[in-house]
Every structure is written in C-alpha cells, then in structure tokens.
C-alpha cells in the first residue's frame, strides 16, 4: 500500500522516459518497419550478378545425367526416379545458374529440389546408424513396426541432401550467401510436382493419399489411421524442401501449423506406442534427406490404403491466453494456470467498481509470471484532506505465479500463485489452479485462500495439517511490505473456476467463471452487492498486442479492461537510419585505401569510435575505444565488410581490439577468406567454419599505426531527462521532464572528468509536498527536496582514473559529485577473467550529503547537512549459464550505515533485454526501515539497440522500487568497472537482433 510513508521514486535515469517513449513508438512502428520490403532505395542498386533487363540463358534442351562427371565420388549418388529431371552441375557454377539451365517445364517442382553434397553424408550416415540401433535395441515399440521401419531405413540411401529453402534462381542470385557454388561431385535433381502426400503409419507402413490444399497433418492421419488419430499428440511433418517441423495435433495441444505440401511425409506416433520424441525427430530428420520419389520407391513393407478421402478440417490454432481483471493470465476475477511466453511484458488496466487496477506483469521464464499493481479504490480517500486533498486511495501489490506442471494428454497444467504478496495485504490471496484444454475450450478449476477464497465455499483442506490453517490473521497493518508467509494458505478457502472459449472468428474470446470471493467481506469494509458468483466477459483481440475486455460481474457490475502486451524478447527496430552495409564481393581491392575514410566508415557501420588502424605483416589491426550497444556481432560483421572492401589484397586476417580508457579488454579475430566465402556463397562441409572468434586481449596496443585518431578532448551531448514519483499522497504521478547535457573532458588516456547538467522544463512538482518519515539517516527520503529545489542541477561531476593491475584485475579511483545526493571519493577493484562466468569486485567510498540544489555546495541539506558515511561493497558476479541468468550479490555497508546484502537476479534474452529483481536485507529492523520492511524491486533493461533505428549505445533502465526508504540504500556510482569491462563478457557481447540469424562471435 502506498500510504503516508512516502511515494515511490523510480531510479529512472535521464534517458528512461525517452526509452519508454521510443520503445512504445518503435514497438508500434516496428510492425510497419518489419515489412520485408526495404524502406529506402536512395541509391538504387541491382543485386549482385544482375544486369538490367537481361534475358536469361537460353533454355537448353532437356539433359539427363544420372550422375555428375565425378571421378572421385566416395559413394554413388542416389539416382532419383524417372519423374525427376536430373542434370549434372558444371563445376564452379552457382545453383542459380544450374536452375536457369533447366528446361522450362510447368510440371517442375523447385520446392522438392534435391541438392546432394557428398561431404554431408558422414553426419547423415551417423543419423541412419543411430536410427537402426534404436530400432534394434528399444523394445518399447511394437516389434513388427520396428521391423518394418528397419527394413525401410536400411533401403534408403545416405544422400548428403541439403535443404534449399527457396529454390528460385532469381532470388538466389540476389542472395549469394544462399546460393552455393556447385562442385563436380555434387548432384542435383529437379523433381516434377507430386500429387500426393504420404503418411508413415505406426506399423511402419506407407499410406499415400492425394494432396489436398487446406489439409493439415491430422486430416491425412484421419484418412490413414482413423482408429488411432485420437491417441496421437504430435505429428512430425517432413516437407518436400527438407524442412522438418513437429506440431501438437491433439485437442489439448493443437497448434497452428503448416499444411503438408505435395511430397510431404507425416509421422505421428500414437501416445504410449513406445516411440520417443527423440526417435521421431531423428526419423524425420533422416527422411528429410530423401527425395519423395525415393521414399515411394524404397524397398518397404507393402503400403496401406487410406480408409477415407482427405477432408480438410478448419485450420488448427494456437491456444490463446489473455489477462484477467488483475492483469494476470486468467479469466475475469480468477487466474488460470496458463502462462505467457517468456519475454512478454504486459500492461493492463481494468475498471470494476469500486476498483481501478493498473498492472505491469513480466514473464522472465516460461514458468514464472510476476509483476506489480496499483489499485485505485475510487470510493475511499488516500488520507486526510490536508495531506492528499481528494485523491482516492491507492494500494500497491506484487504478484507471483509459478507453473508447477505443464499440461499433458491426461493431466492438466498446474500453477500456484500469490497475489498482493508483501503489501499491506488488502487483497492478499494464494491459489492453486489447474487448466485443461479441449479444442477451443480451456477449462480451469482452482482453490483460493485469502481474498480469493473469502466465500469459504469449501473447508480449507490444509486444516488437516494443523489448526493453524483454520484462521487467517489480519494483514500487517500500515507498514506493510513484509512477505506475510504466516498467512499463506490459511483461513477460509473457496473453489473457483471457469472456461474460456476461443471463437472461430479468431479475435473473440468468451469467458465465464465462478468467483470464489465474498464481496461482503471487502477490505476497508467496502462491501459490494453480489447477485451471483458467476461472471461473464468478452475479450476482443484488437491486434496482436492489444486486447479489449468487457465483462458483467457480480450480476450487476460492468467491467472494462484494456491490455497492451508485447514480446520484449523479440523486440527489434530495423536500422533504417544507418548506412547500408557495403556489398560484399569475393574480389579484393587493387588500390591502397585512404585510411581516414576507412576509419570513418567503420565508425558509421558499427557506431563505435575507431582509435587507430595498424598493420603487422599481413594482419590488419583496428582498435575500438569505448564500444557499447547490445548487438556486438552484428556491428563486427558490418565493420568487417568495410575492412574487406578497403584492406589491401594481401591482408588475410583482421583483428579488432576493444579498449576502455586506453586498456585493451578483448579481441575479435576475423579470418578474411572464410568470412568472405561465408558471405558470397552458401557453405557446405568442410568449409563451414566459424570465421570470427574472440580471443583474450594483448597487453599493449600495436605500435606504428597506419592511422591514429585525433580525438577531441571535450565531448558532450543533449538527452532528454525524466524523474517521477508514483503513487505518493500528493498525486499519483508527479513528474519532472527536461533535458540533460552529459559531457566528458579527457585529461589523459586513462583519466577523465565526466558530468552532466540537467535542466527541468516541465513538471507538476508544485503538488509535491510530502516528505516521508524515517527512523534512519535520511539518505534517500529527502527526495522531494532534491527534486524540487532547483530546476538546474549538476547530478554528476567527477574525475575518474582507471587502470589495469595485471591480466584480469582492474581498478578505478574517482572523486567529485558522484550522484545527485552524495559527493566524495572512492575506489573500486575488479577481478574479471576474460570470458569467465565469474567476477569479483570491491568498492569503497567516503561520501557526504550534497545540498538540495545539487550544485557545488553541501550546506543546504536539511537535517542531513554535513552527513558523512563510509560505504562500500564486495560484489560477486555469476553468469549461471542457465537461460542467460545472471546473479549478483553485494555485501557491505549502505548509505545509512546499515550493514547487509543485496541479491540481484536477472534473466537476459537473446536480443539483450533483461528482466530482473533485487532484494536488500540489512541489519535494520522492519520497524526501523518503515513501510516495505526491506528494500526490493524489479527492473527491466532494454538496450537502445532494440528500440532505435540506428545503432547506438545505452540502455533504458526501467526500475520499479515500491518504496524509497533509507535502509539498504546504495551509492549510485555512475562509473562501475563491471560495466566498463563488458567486452570481457561472453554473454553480454553475444546478443543478436531478434529474428536475425546469429553471426560471428564466440557464442555461436
């Protein structure tokens, strides 16, 4: 509850607002930008190898070669059947050229193109061997079926087939990276369009049916194995182009899925038939190496006839989830066991008299949903009129829901959750809920305790464990913030549940539920009439990110809801404002480069400042100073394109050295020839090697550079600034918006003065009057005074010297106005081995409270004037390697002089977005600490790289700290060695734009 103890001040930095705005605007815009058609053709160019209005090679007469003229082929290339046109490649020609040479045949089926490469046979032979071993030794599957499959697999050749996802010659010409150069021992075959699809039955027999447009795997299975189809949960579909996918096909797990194209093969083992998913995947992958003709002609057991014709059913759809009135995935008032996909963020607003709920929910893991909520109780005042006028009551709460078990064919999905944990507990509830899906219906049944179970329609089953569970104590009272474990699952309990129906019209969901709450026991005696415990609602999915809900609840009350949700893990903004990457060609330059232009282009491509370019023999070295941003590998690829374009022909290797404050931190080695090959033609084994790899850095920079930067000593920028106070007694949102000018003056290579001036332009701080109460030195709770005293502030101005102590140890010493409330001196030492998951650091600081004006004085800091403290922490960092989860543990002395520890756990996604939470417990008692009992919060870090249309640095750090108190408060140091040495991290330099294929770097 946000009561009299002071409002929550976000630790939002100057860039937060813009981050959010940019995030929203880009997220809204991204769908438009994500269109594959490029936004700009300012300098129209034709793709590689294309001349204007060129008439293609003349269409030659049909040629039929069974095998390429290959004198040294290790094994015979499989000869496809007569319905396939086979011709040998001319060694050195592209696949696109070969396709263009083929006779024009309207019956040709490019989707089924067979491109066979002998060097790929080794892996495929291993796959075949493993399948045969599995069939020989595994006795769970029926013996007859295993014998049939064994016979078929033995009969199938090891082809070396590689899939060609888009066998369109003209498209391949424009995408040389996908267009292989054919060798003498490659074989190619262009089949004719088959008219059938085949099912591999559970007996290991083939059932071939006419292809029917609109039909999915289940439709074919129903025709071939009607007696078994209801016991099939998943189908593996091998498409004619060699793609393999598997889909849920039962009513409980049905997924939106591809149709089976002509020439597809379907394998769907019945539940409990003894075929493991691993076997099914292996089988499908091996079958994908075959041509459809080969499969039909293989020496296999006699096929079976379909029992009926294929009748396309309605396309199957994914299960749809939506938020309940509380923002959690659920029905209306009640939650369900369903979860969003990891990476989703959701903002939800709902209104059901007398409550308005605004919730933010995050899904850091597939099985964990967590977030916070502000509930506006519209018929209760916040406090006395003198303090908060007519502002209505605001209640804060934190929710957690954990999936205990995923749904199976027979068992429902289970989840357990806690609502309003750690708050004043007005709405605190615990629940256990189960869900089972049946087609378009998703049924839920749960049991709730606390607010959710207040109707007591069932006796608490946990009472069997002891009488303690019979009663539930009152919430903690005005201080709140404790995790009230003593209340959990106690007192009255109630069953709740309902159903969601996904209408055929796709965008509509219908919900009905039985509510377990008793509205005659509302908190604050705010009782409401309830004519019926049945609630009804409709959700309209306006677009993939916005849901609108309307409901009729308690028999007499309307509900309105709006949900905005987005998958942050897939957030990306196309870089339409950046220069396009230079076209990569196999040739090398014949003239010497103008290095200043090369350096400029490297910076333009990467967004990173180039410090110097040097040459050592046939190796070109580039030093980057102060690399930032999230997607390093993408930038390295782009700068390599410039290096390859400009570097003399004899250069065979590029080395990029990443430095910070003049200290080498990490290196990337780029092998020029393999890198070029990778970019100008599709690679096959054994040429498929990684051309870019990370190495530990050298001790010194290269000497005798070809080009050296003449860096300006002084640099500045202008950025927007934002500060806010949310949920305080003076107003729900108090804010200050303005601009800030961060600047840097470089005194020497390793010593700089950095700082910022901030100017407020727009605010409503004239309403900000309340200063929170505190039992501790007021190191943070004088925030009102700091935020409102002066429109012009100097939040930071410090001199920092940084250095290296041996291979893996770094240090910094600094002094000045270290943050908005404290000035002083300090130092930090960090031990961070290169690419190690572990790091350890210590910082120590002696600081004094600054004045409220945040200028250069110390005298006007109210009761804190002259307050000094020695503060610092020992910090352990651990990159766990599990789902990109990082753990940080600080132990030490905090600003109020209290001793304790902070645990911070964050999960990063592949695009660099991080969701995390922290908690601090010090030797300050809950009573001394005040409301909240201990410091805690959640955060969301969104790299600007995923939001901006050009590559930049920085991170939008969105922090929710329910209450700002004095206990457990840390010094906000603007320069931390762990961040400065980020180039030594494997994880933090391995992120990639969402949707992009990961390239280069150490992590792929």
């Amino acid at each position, binding site marked *: 509850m946000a009561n009299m103890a002071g409002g929550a001040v976000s630790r939002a930095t100057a860039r937060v607002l813009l981050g959010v705005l940019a995030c929203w605007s880009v997220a809204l815009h991204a769908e438009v930008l994500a269109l594959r*058609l490029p936004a700009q053709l300012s300098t129209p160019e034709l793709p590689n190898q294309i001349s204007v209005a060129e008439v293609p090679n003349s269409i030659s007469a049909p040629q039929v070669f069974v095998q390429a003229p290959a004198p040294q082929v290790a094994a015979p290339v499989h000869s496809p059947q007569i319905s396939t046109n086979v011709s040998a490649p001319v060694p050195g020609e592209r696949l696109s050229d070969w396709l263009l040479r083929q006779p024009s045949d309207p019956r040709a089926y490019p989707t089924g193109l067979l491109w066979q490469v002998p060097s790929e046979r080794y892996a495929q032979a291993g796959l075949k061997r493993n399948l045969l071993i599995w069939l020989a030794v595994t006795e769970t599957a029926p013996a007859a079926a295993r014998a049939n499959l064994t016979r078929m697999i033995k009969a199938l050749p090891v082809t070396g087939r590689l899939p060609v996802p888009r066998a369109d010659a003209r498209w391949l010409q424009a995408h040389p990276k996908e267009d292989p150069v054919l060798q003498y021992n490659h074989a190619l075959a262009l089949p004719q369009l088959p008219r059938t699809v085949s099912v591999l039955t559970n007996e290991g027999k083939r059932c071939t049916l006419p292809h029917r447009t609109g039909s999915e795997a289940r439709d074919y299975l129903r025709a071939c194995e009607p007696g078994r189809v209801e016991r099939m949960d998943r189908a593996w579909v091998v498409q004619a182009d060699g793609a393999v996918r598997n889909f849920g096909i039962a009513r409980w797990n049905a997924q939106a899925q591809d149709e089976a194209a002509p020439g597809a093969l379907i394998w769907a083992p019945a539940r409990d038939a003894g075929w493991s998913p691993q076997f099914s995947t292996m089988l499908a992958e091996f079958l994908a190496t075959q041509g459809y003709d080969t499969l039909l002609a293989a020496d296999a057991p006699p096929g079976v006839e379909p029992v009926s014709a294929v009748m396309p059913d309605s396309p199957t759809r994914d299960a749809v989830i939506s938020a309940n009135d509380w923002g959690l995935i659920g029905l209306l008032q009640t939650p369900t066991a369903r979860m969003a996909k990891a990476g989703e963020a959701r903002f939800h607003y709902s209104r059901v008299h007398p409550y308005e709920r605004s919730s933010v929910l995050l899904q850091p893991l597939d099985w964990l949903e967590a977030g916070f909520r502000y509930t506006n109780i519209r018929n209760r005042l916040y406090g006395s009129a003198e303090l908060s006028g007519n502002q209505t009551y605001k209640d804060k709460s934190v929710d957690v829901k954990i999936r205990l078990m995923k749904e199976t064919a027979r068992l429902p999905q289970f989840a357990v959750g806690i609502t309003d944990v750690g708050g004043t507990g007005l709405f605190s509830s615990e629940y256990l809920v189960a869900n089972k899906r049946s087609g378009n219906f998703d049924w839920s049944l749960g049991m709730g305790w606390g607010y959710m179970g207040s109707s007591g329609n069932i006796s608490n089953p946990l009472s069997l464990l002891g009488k303690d569970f019979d009663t539930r104590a009152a919430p903690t009272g005005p201080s709140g913030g404790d995790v009230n474990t003593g209340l959990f699952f106690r007192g009255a309990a109630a069953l709740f549940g309902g159903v969601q129906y996904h209408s055929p019209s796709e965008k509509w969901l219908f919900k009905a539920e039985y509510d377990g709450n008793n509205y005659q026991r509302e908190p604050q005696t705010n009782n409401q009439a309830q004519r019926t415990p049945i609630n009804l609602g409709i959700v309209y999915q306006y677009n993939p990110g916005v849901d609108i809900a309307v409901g009729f609840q308690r028999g007499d009350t309307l509900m309105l809801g709006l949900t905005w949700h987005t998958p942050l893990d897939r957030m990306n903004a196309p870089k339409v404002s950046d220069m396009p990457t230079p076209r990569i060609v196999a040739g090398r330059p014949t003239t010497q480069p103008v290095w200043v232009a090369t350096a400029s282009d490297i910076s333009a491509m990467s967004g990173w400042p180039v410090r110097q370019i040097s040459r050592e023999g046939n190796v070109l070295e580039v030093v980057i100073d102060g690399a930032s941003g999230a997607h390093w590998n993408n930038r390295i690829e782009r700068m390599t394109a410039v290096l390859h374009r400009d570097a003399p022909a004899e250069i065979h290797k590029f080395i990029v050295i990443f430095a910070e404050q003049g200290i080498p931190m990490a290196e990337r080695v780029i092998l020029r020839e393999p890198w070029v090959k990778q970019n100008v033609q599709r690679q096959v084994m054994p040429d498929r090697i990684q051309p870019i790899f990370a190495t530990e850095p050298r001790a010194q920079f290269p000497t005798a550079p070809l080009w050296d930067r003449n860096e300006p000593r002084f640099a500045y920028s202008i950025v927007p600034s934002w500060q806010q106070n949310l949920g305080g007694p003076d107003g729900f949102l108090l804010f200050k918006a303005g601009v800030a000018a961060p600047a840097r003056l470089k005194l020497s290579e390793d010593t700089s003065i950095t700082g910022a001036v901030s100017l407020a332009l727009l605010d409503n701080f004239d309403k900000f009057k309340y200063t929170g109460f505190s039992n501790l030195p007021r190191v943070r709770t004088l925030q009102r005074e700091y935020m409102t005293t002066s429109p012009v502030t100097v939040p930071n101005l410090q001199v920092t010297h940084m250095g290296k102590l041996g291979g893996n140890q770094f240090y910094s010493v600094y002094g000045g106005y270290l943050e908005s409330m404290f000035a002083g001196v300090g130092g930090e030492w960090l031990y961070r081995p290169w690419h190690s998951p572990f790091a350890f650091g210590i910082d120590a600081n002696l600081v004094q409270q600054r004045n409220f004006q945040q200028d250069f004085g110390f005298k006007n800091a109210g009761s804190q004037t002259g307050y000094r403290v020695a503060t610092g922490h020992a910090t352990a960092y651990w990159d766990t390697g599990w789902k990109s989860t990082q753990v940080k543990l600080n132990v030490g002395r905090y600003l109020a002089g209290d001793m304790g520890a902070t645990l911070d756990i964050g999960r990063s996604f592949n695009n660099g977005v991080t969701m995390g939470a922290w908690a601090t417990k010090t030797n300050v008692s809950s009573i001394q600490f005040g409301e909240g009992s201990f410091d805690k919060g959640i955060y969301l870090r969104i790299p600007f790289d995923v939001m901006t249309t050009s590559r930049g640095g920085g991170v939008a750090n969105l922090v929710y700290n329910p209450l700002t108190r004095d206990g457990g408060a840390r010094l906000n140091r603007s320069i931390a060695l762990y961040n400065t040495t980020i180039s030594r991290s494997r994880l933090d330099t391995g992120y990639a734009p969402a949707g992009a294929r990961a390239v280069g770097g150490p992590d792929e």
Partner: protein
Amino acid sequence: MIHHRFRLLSLCLALTALFLGGCGYTTPITQTVRVAIRGPVQDVDALKLNPDLRYLRVTVRGRVVLMVLGYVEPHAEGEIQTWYSSEGELMRLQNGRLVATAGLETDWRAVRNSSLPAWKEVSRQNAAGAATDYRRERDEMPGYRFGIVESVSLYAVAVPPNSKLVGVRAGDFRWFEEAVRGQADGLPSARYALRVIDGEPRVIYGEQCLSLDLCLAWQTWPAAQ
C-alpha cells in the same frame, strides 16, 4: 514548482536545441523519433533516379519503396518481369499482374493462370458487358499452402477514388477489378489501371493483396512512363 517565466525560457532553450538538432546534431534517439514521425523515407518520389534503370513505385502499408527491374524473361503468355528491392526481395509481374514474390512475409511462390485471355481480349469482352472469368492456382508461403485454386472474375470498373496511383490522373486510365469468387481467404479484390500504348493495352498500375494484412500497389515510375 518551476516558475512560469522560467518555464517559458526553458522551453525556448529546448526548442533552440531541437533546431540545432536540425542542423546536424543527431543521435539514435533523434533519428528514431524522426523515423517514427516522418517514416523511414524522406521522399521517395523526389529521389534522383538512374536513367539506366527501370523503376517500380510500390506502396505497402502506407510506405513507399522503389524496386528496380532486374530481368525480363520471355514467356508464351507474355514476358515476365522480375523486380528487386534493395534487400533482394523480388516481385514477378506478367502482363502487369503479380505472378510471384520471394522474400516477403507472405509470398506467392508461384501463380498459374489458366484460360486467362490477353488484356486486349479482356477489354473487348468487358466492352461487350461481360466479365472475364479464369482459374488461378497459387502456392503460398509460409505455411506450405500449395495448390490454392481460385475462380477469378475480371471486369471493368469506374475510376476508383482510393487508389495509390500518383503523378498522373487516375481518370486517364481504364480500370479493371479482379475478384476471387466464393473462397474463404477473403482477400480484397485486385485492381489494374490500363493505358493503350502502341495499340496494346498495358498495365500502368496494379494492386494485389497477398494476405489480409499485406497489400501491394505498384506503378511504373516515374509516373510519366
């Protein structure tokens, strides 16, 4: 709490800073804001074109891009033009009608028309008050939707008020609409604007939706061509 006079001064300073931004002070954020407000392209129609290339002005979801002609390939039913975007997505047109795309979020991999007469015959039939019906079969990706068979009706229509045609008067052309009859996809009708050049009707402008949310409109560019 900031005094109003100061607030005004501050606003002026901020506006000055923004104007300075117009003078070249750019950051990823300012660039993103510009793109969000103005779109990624400043003015495609004002771009200087290479006289050696042939262009197609394509409108998609309110954005305009230019594509360049890469190949013209002979075909019994009319030459096939292959147009490229700068990122290598391609669009194939035959007689001004879309017959394939590659690289878009929804592709029509191949379109096979049967019983489709030439535009001259279509014009003649429509002059006689009859619509032209033909059968279209197409392959769509992603989703492996192969062999989608549609009955298409092609007929003359009045000048539409909402085309994406620019640079020339829509009224100077003869317009045709192409509707799919009785199928579930529910795609909006395709439209074509034709002009008679050297005695042959030629498509100057076309519209085709590949899916419910991906519709393309194209016209030869510059418009005078």
